Every structure is written in structure tokens, then in C-alpha cells.
């Protein structure tokens, strides 16, 4: 497995090179001059001479290839450059924001899995019961509602009506509750539906009928066989959601003032702070690839019959 992991990591190098080129080119082609933004962000007047001077100072007048190669060389040394807005290094900014995003992502995933998997299993066992129908309505609704609406409704309910939480949250455990809930509701809906479908599919398999016939306890069938066999598809959907969460939920982070990567990217895009955006995209792309690798490895760990090659 180690050999396989190393091989996959080595294969990442050309992918990452391609990513740097794509990221840099996209930023280069994106409309919006950072120098002009810097000079006129409060609506002031600008002269062509001043604009040209600031563009030169920011290195924006250099040819594309020079700018790209210089950036890549710095990236190889772990330097993602300095932000345009405050001239501070990009790496600590990203690491700080990524920490918050990661903690939110972990909380959401754990919370969602803990709630959704038992719910999915139970509704599969109790297919078409009243409970199943109620949960299906909830999961349909949870899937259909956009995140910003869920976030605002939760804020209205918990902050304005129940007054259990402040609107102005801090990046603490308590402050994490509402964004976690807002992001988890659609995730729980998806996971529960997926788990229900998989478990139902497994329950109709011949081996389950056979085990029942041999008098194997239902608990054993469910936990040792059915859930085990359903784990692959559950892991797939969980890993997909983790990848979405790592990218930062811009709207949820903004509404709840969560200082994660989504919030940082939104601020940076508004300010045309390209070094921060480029750095963020590069790191996120790398993380996405690593999550893919971990997902593949987890398939192997769950079912040894699966070949890593």
C-alpha cells in the first residue's frame, strides 16, 4: 500500500504543474486590474501615469511567462508570495483560514455521518413506515434547499427567536454550531438517502436471505455484512462532500463570519488579490487530489479484494 501511495504521490507532480499553469493563466485572464482596484477601491480618480507606476511596482507589467516562472519557482520553495492588499505573506494567511475550514469540515462530516448512517439504516429496515416517510420528506427538503437559505433560517430561529446563539458568532466551538448545522443538513439528507438505498439493496441480496434462513442474528447481518458491503458507496459520497467542504462554503462562512478559506477567497477576489487567490486554489487543488488518494486507499482497507493497481 505504501508503494502504491508513493507512486500516486509521484504521479501528482505533473498534475500539480498543470494546475499551477491553469490557475495562473485563469488569474491572468480574469478581468480586473489589481493596480486599478488598489487605487480606486474607494472611488477616487486615477491618472494613467499613476496607474502605470503602481502596475510596475506590483510587477503587473511583466510578461506572462516571466511572472508565471517566477511564481512557480517561489512556490517550489514554499513561498506563495505576498498579498497585494497588505503585503503580508500568503502562506500564513492560507494556513490560518484552512485550519478553520478544516475544523468546520471535520465537524460537519462527523456530525453528518453520525446522524445520517443510523438514520439511513433504520429507514431502510423500516421501509415505507411512517418514520421512513417523515425522514424522506426531510431528506428531500434538505437536499433541495440552498445553503444560504438554511443558514439564514437557522440564524433566524436560533438567534432571533430562541436566542440561544448570538448573530455575531465567534470562531469558537459554540460559534461552530450553527455553520456546522447549516452545512450538515444537506449532507445528512444526501448521506441518509444514499445509505438507505444501499442498505435496502444489500438487504435484498441472496446472502442476506440465506443468513436469515440459517438463523443468523439480524444485528450481525446488519453490522457485519450489510453495512460493510454498503461502506464503499457511503465512503464515495462522504469523500465527495469533504472535497466540497474543503473548498470552503463561501456563503455559510460569510453569513456566520467563519474565518475560513471561503471567506478569505471572497475577500481576496473582491480586492483582486491574485497571489492569495492563486495560492488558495493551488492548495485546495492539492488537497482535493490527496482526498482522492485517501478515498481510494480506504476502499482497499475496507475490502481487500479490491486491487490498488
Amino acid at each position, binding site marked *: 500500500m505504501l508503494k502504491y501511495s508513493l507512486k500516486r504521490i509521484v504521479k501528482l507532480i505533473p498534475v500539480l504543474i498543470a494546475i499551477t499553469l491553469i490557475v495562473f493563466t485563469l488569474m491572468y485572464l480574469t*478581468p480586473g486590474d489589481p493596480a486599478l482596484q488598489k487605487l480606486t477601491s474607494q472611488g477616487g480618480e486615477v491618472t494613467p501615469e499613476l496607474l502605470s507606476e503602481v502596475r510596475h511596482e506590483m510587477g503587473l507589467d511583466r510578461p506572462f511567462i516571466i511572472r508565471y516562472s517566477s511564481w512557480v519557482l517561489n512556490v517550489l520553495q514554499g513561498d506563495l508570495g505576498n498579498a497585494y492588499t*497588505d503585503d503580508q505573506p500568503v502562506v500564513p494567511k492560507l494556513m490560518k483560514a484552512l485550519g478553520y475550514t478544516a475544523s468546520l469540515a471535520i465537524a460537519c462530516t462527523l456530525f453528518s455521518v453520525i446522524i445520517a448512517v*443510523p438514520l439511513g439504516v433504520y429507514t431502510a429496515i423500516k421501509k415505507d413506515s411512517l418514520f421512513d416517510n417523515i425522514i424522506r420528506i426531510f431528506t428531500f427538503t434538505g437536499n433541495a434547499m440552498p445553503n444560504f437559505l438554511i443558514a439564514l433560517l437557522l440564524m433566524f430561529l436560533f438567534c432571533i427567536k430562541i*436566542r440561544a446563539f448570538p448573530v455575531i458568532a465567534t470562531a*469558537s466551538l*459554540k*460559534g461552530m454550531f450553527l455553520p456546522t448545522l447549516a452545512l450538515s443538513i444537506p449532507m445528512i439528507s444526501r448521506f441518509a438517502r444514499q445509505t438507505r438505498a444501499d442498505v435496502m439493496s444489500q438487504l435484498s441480496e441472496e446472502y442476506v436471505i440465506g443468513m436469515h434462513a440459517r438463523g443468523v442474528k*439480524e444485528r450481525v447481518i446488519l453490522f457485519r455484512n450489510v453495512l460493510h458491503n454498503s461502506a464503499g458507496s457511503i465512503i464515495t459520497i462522504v469523500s465527495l462532500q469533504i472535497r466540497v467542504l474543503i473548498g470552503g462554503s463561501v456563503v455559510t462562512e460569510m453569513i456566520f463570519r467563519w474565518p475560513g478559506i471561503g471567506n478569505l477567497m471572497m*475577500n481576496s477576489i473582491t480586492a483582486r488579490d491574485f497571489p492569495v487567490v492563486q495560492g488558495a486554489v493551488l492548495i485546495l487543488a492539492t488537497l482535493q487530489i490527496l482526498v482522492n488518494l485517501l478515498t481510494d486507499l480506504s476502499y482497499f482497507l475496507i475490502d481487500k479484494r479490491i486491487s490498488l493497481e
Partner: protein
Amino acid sequence: MKKRLATLLLCLAMVFTTLTGCGSKSEPAPSGSTGDANANTNTSTSEPAAAPEATVATTGGIIRSVEGFAYATLDPHKDYNSWHSQKYGLTESLFKLGDDMKIQPWLAKSLEIKDTVAVLTLNDGVCFSNGTPLTADMVKRNLERLSEVNKRFKFYANFTMEATDDKTLTITMPEVMPTLENEMASPEACMLDLDATTDIDNAPISTGPFAVDVFIPEGDITLKRNDNYWGGHVNLDGAKFFSMRDGQSKLMAMQNGEIDAYDSLSATDIEIFSAEPDRYQLFSVPSQARTYMFLNPKTVPESVRQAVILTVDRESISAFMGGTVSPSYGAYNESTPYGKVQYPSIDLAKAKEIMEADGYTLNSNNVYEKNGVELPTIGLYCYAARSIDSMAVLIKEQLTNSGIPAEIKLVEDPDGTYMTDKQYDICFYRMTTDKTGDPLAFIDGVVRSGSYQDITGYGNAATDAQIEELRFTIDSEKRAEIANAIMQDYTDAAVFCPLVTYNRNIVMSTGVTHFAETNPYEFYTLDANTTAPSQK
């Protein structure tokens, strides 16, 4: 099985609730509460605040507001950071702009300009928050630093400055600069104790009624009273500005009593707050940020341009925007001496008269035609930001109803290169037209030939000569006369059409006063007289 599953679910829910429901105060709080020294405030961010019932103004206490943009440094000389630091009452410029947009003394008492020599005299008793007096030499060093770190103020580097005594700075300029006093009223012309400040990004020591308590880069800022304030007693114990971008969250925080005041209200906010006059005070004052149209003389004939200007109904645009904007009929506020050139309001009859005089007639499709050829559709080029696209839609309707066919051309180009490349019929732009109480900046940046926004190609030698005269004229009456003459010619050319002025809409809880609620400039908010609400 059922019981076990139910028990398992219950236990898991309890574990999560326990994990998330406790310990918030011991956790780091990058966007707010870490090191919040103002624990004496009734503004705890970890507990919901009580609903603000009837409130009265008192001295003391903390005012809480929000900041819509997260910025990473407080260094007021860099970029536009001083626009925020001055709002917080942390920094003060040498002069200030009053509610009437006239320059008033602040850190400086006076500036006397005679030809190329200016004498700046500091106000009495000005000192930094650490008690160190502000000297003329420190002003010189600050202006030198400003010229080094902010390209917009590099002209200070061309000056020879000498501190004649502790309170007098003599400035020798390479050429006459009548707008020097206005430049010194910019928030950037603020003073820092450059000797005592050790962390200019996070804790600059300045002269305002408040000093930095805790600043979290790209997060919240907590301010404490400056007990050494040179301007006298400071009412509040402190202030807190939460970094918050989302408009809905701001609204709910205000409704929940977690903040006491904020600006940049949306039309919905205004409607909601105005329904509760006992709890909220609403103020609206036109700012100096305007949206205007440029009309391309190369693609739109003069008669059509004039008709367009007369067809635009600014009042209905303003009504549609729900109080967030006011109609604008000139580049400057008409109350200023240099803002006397104002456009006429909507006059459809006159527009029709102009069109008909040029040979256009309305055909059966209600479209003007000339010699049997319909007027080509006019492209309204705009970028979807700051409600400009909504304005364009309304204008399209107004023009179309009056027989001038128009279509929206949304352009994903925030720099407006389509404008500078002159690839437009009519385009929209937003700009602060009067940042320092003087007409030159706008005229120099828009009307002068070859200027960045001379996108209509209007600039000409005669106007340039007038602009040069304006540049070097010291007498304010004469300046106003020249500016009005320039703007009259510009108006007559029908290439420029002011549309709306953005309002500074402010909501304050009952009991809050002196929140700069009547000042048109967004870089003023707190001062020594600001009061916060307190419970009865």
C-alpha cells in the same frame, strides 16, 4: 434493536451538543473575542444580547458597529486604510470636511498659502494617545512617510518642509498648489507617533479619541477611550467594530441588539427599521459617490444625446432603489460654490422637440426615424455592480418608451476597458466625484484631454487651458467660477449625464448620537461626543 438504535442516536446527539455547547470562552476567537479586553461591555459576543428596549443616551459604555470589509492592516498611510481608522476615531487628519463640505481646522489650525510657500500651523494642545505632543517635525515626517508608502500622495515628496517651531511647518512647493488644504483634509493626512509606534500594522499610536485595544487582522477591532485626548472628554469607554460582510447578518445583529449602529443599509433594511421608530433612528445623507453616464459622441448623434439626458427620470430611479440613492443633477453637490451647473430634470416635451428639430419623427412602432430609417438601438454598457445594472434596466425602459431604442450590454469588465477603448454608446461609471471639497480632482481626471476618464474624447485645448488656470488659482471664488465654466461647457456637449448620488444610510439604536449621521463623507463615524445606548 429499536431501543438500541434510539439510544445510540440519542447518545451521539448528546456528545455533539456537549462538544459544541460549551467552552466557547476558552477557545481562540480570530474574528472577535480573542483578547477582548472590553469584558466590561454589555456586548459579549458569546451570549445573545438582550433585546434593546427603550434606551437613553448616557456617557460611558461601548458602541458596537460593523465593518463591511476585512482588511489586514491598520497602517493609515497605506492604501485606503485611513478611511477605516478615521471612522473608528483612531486617526484624525490635519483638516476635516464638515457636514457642509467646507474645510474645518482639526489637527491643524490653519494653512496659509502664498505662491509656492505654505505655512501650516498646528492646533493648540494636540497630542498622541500616549500623551506625547504632536510637533511640526512629526507632521513633516508623517507626510514624508505618506509620500513613500502611498503613491496617491507622492507629491509630498516634491515639497521642501521645514519645522519652523513646534507648531509651525513651512512647506515650499515646486509650483502653486491651491488644493493643498483639501489634500490635508484627506483621511490619509493623519498623524502617527512614529517614534513610539512599534507595531504600525496592528497598533498605530495616533491622535483620535480612541486607541487600539485589540485588532485582529481581517477580523474585528476593539477600541478603548484615549484618556489623553487633546480635544477634551471622550464620552464612550470604547467601541467595537465587527467584521461582517453579509447584509442579512448585519440586519439580524441589529434587530437582536448585538450592534448599536451601522451604515450602508439596503432598501429592505430601511423599510424594516423605519417601521420601528421607537427603537431605531434612521438617517440618510447624500454622499459624494455618484453614478453617471458617458454618451459617446462618435456613435450617438448630439440631438439624441440631448434627448437621452432629458428623458432620464432620476426621481423614479431613486424611488425604485428604495432610498439607497438620491437623484443627481450635477457632478458636485449644488450647495457648493463650484456645483452651480446642474442638469435640468426630466423634460420629455423638450426631448421630443430636440429630436424633431433634427428631423426625427416617431413612427408607428413608437421609434424615432429619420429619412425612413429607424434610429439604431443604443447599447447601454454596464458592469453588474453597485446596482448599476438595475439603473440601466430602468433607463432602457424610459428611453424605449420615449422612442429611443436601447438595449442592455452587460460587460464582465470591472476595469471598464470597453470605456477607455471607446467601444460603447452609453456607459455607466461610479466615482467619488468630490473627495476633498474641491472641484479640481474630478475635472482633472475626467474632463482634461488625455485624462484617464476622458473617454468621450471631449478634452480640448481651450478646456485644458481653463483646467491649468484652475490648478493654480488660489482664490476660492475664482476657482468656483472657473470650475462652473468648465462644467457648463462639458454639460453643453451632452457627453456626460449624472444619474444618482449614493446615500449614506445609517441606522442607530435610540440613544446613539454623533455617529457622523449628517456628514456626507463615509470616512467619519466616531468622535469624542459619540454616545451609546444604555438600558433604562
